[in-house]
């Protein structure tokens, strides 16, 4: 294993330790005995919060996440082939790698066109459809 990962390990450890460290330093420095009164509420512009804070939200967030994960996976899958492209081009045999890359882009474009045409990328579509007719 490369030694660079040792650095990565220390970075993660130090960054993770920094958070409790700073909060701990604060606990030592700050004046004692002054605490917010119990029974404080969530800050919603001074009004009393109505209902649970864990509201139901727009399902569009979820559809976007689904589209994202498929694109993300496709990109991860094409990275190894992409690193070979330069070598193949300089060696005069780029056609195969190029075909592979083109297929990758074509599949992503197809998926994107499907989502676009069927309106999954329209953020406000659901709202306007359910809005009461005048």
């Amino acid at each position, binding site marked *: 294993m490369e*030694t660079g990962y040792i650095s990565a390990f*220390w970075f993660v450890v*130090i960054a993770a330790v920094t958070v409790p460290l700073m*909060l701990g330093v604060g606990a030592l420095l700050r004046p004692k005995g002054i605490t917010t009164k119990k029974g404080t509420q*969530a800050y*919603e512009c001074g009004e009393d919060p109505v209902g649970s804070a864990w509201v139901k939200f727009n399902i569009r967030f979820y559809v976007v996440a689904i589209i994202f994960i498929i694109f*993300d996976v496709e990109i991860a899958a094409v990275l190894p082939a992409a690193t070979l492209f330069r070598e193949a081009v300089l060696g005069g045999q780029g056609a195969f790698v190029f075909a592979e890359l083109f297929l990758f882009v074509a599949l992503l474009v197809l998926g994107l066109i499907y989502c676009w045409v069927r309106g999954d990328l329209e953020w406000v579509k659901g709202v306007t459809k359910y809005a009461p007719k005048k």
Partner: protein
Amino acid sequence: MPANSALFAQTLTQWTQGTWLATVPLWAWALVSALIIIYMLALPFGGIATYIERKIAADMQDRIGPNRVGPFGIFQFAADAIKMISKEDYVPPGGDRFLFNIAPVLVVVGSCAGFVALPLGQYLVAGDINIGILYIMAVTTLIAPGILLGSWASENKWSLLGGLRSAAQIVSYEIPVALSMLPVILISGSLQVGEIVKQQGWNPADPIHANAHFWNVFHNPFTVIAFFILFVGGLAETNRIPFDLPEAESELVSGFNTEFSGMRFGLYALGEFVDVFVMCALVTTLYLGGWQLPFLELDKFWITLPSGLIALIHVGFFMGKTLLLVFVVMWLRWTLPRLRVDQLMGLCWKGLVPISLFNIVGTAVWMWAFKGQSMIQVLGSLFSGGSASH
């Protein structure tokens, strides 16, 4: 034979040759390099950036800005830090204490760990690992779950809405960002950041002409577009204006960090600024030649410069380019209005993603047609009658 890619630690080892520090093992130097970069670069930058941002804002709005603490108010960030540290450590009573505590850790780790693969100088990169770009993509994904969990744990409607927007925005814009890194990978044939920067030098005497092709942003017309897409996507991933919907103060109070106060808020703000730096440094590394100077190679200069001076010049150029981009980020804040949610998603999926897919094909065709040479090299070989091409 395992490759030694902890270049920063290795450099420290070499500099301390012959002193009493020579017996310190590599892992300890790796720890030292992590301490140096996080505590002397990342976190101070996060602090000073708040001061710089306020000063820039003041200049643009014809105000004076912070001017009380120290000369030109330069110690304002220290005063802010002391204020935040000494504030009450507040956890919302209805919220989820465990998730509330763990969320800032994820955000800070996600932004600080990205520094590992950023080459500050030729030999000043903490870990030049061979999946460098993938590594940076991987660690920065920790930020989105951190923001989402923190907003959930706050038990506040504004927080939750801000967190959901933020997560959706970060994951959406990760696609154009990743797609805009692909042209660089096609050009360089490597995920290793050190290798990518090395190829962006200028060396017409190189036997394989394509090995040193000047900055990637000028490699072909498509990479110019990809550079801008990467920058815009980076703005959105770091929740900066004009993409600051997650913390839009006019509609969501303060967004996902509404309930975070004192040092907890400080850590979020710090994480955000560090993330801005990582993003700008990544753009610099991939497209603006990293530590490379335009048209100069200090190693092959007509006088032999001391290696320490070369390292300093490299770091200076890297920081200069990166801070210029950071300045642009702050400049945009006072220039552009905020987008609406539908415009945000539309810009990403209907604008940036198709264009960056087009860029990939375009770059591949260019590479194929011109044997991997850049625009400048092609023009150069045209003027010299094709003699420079191999």
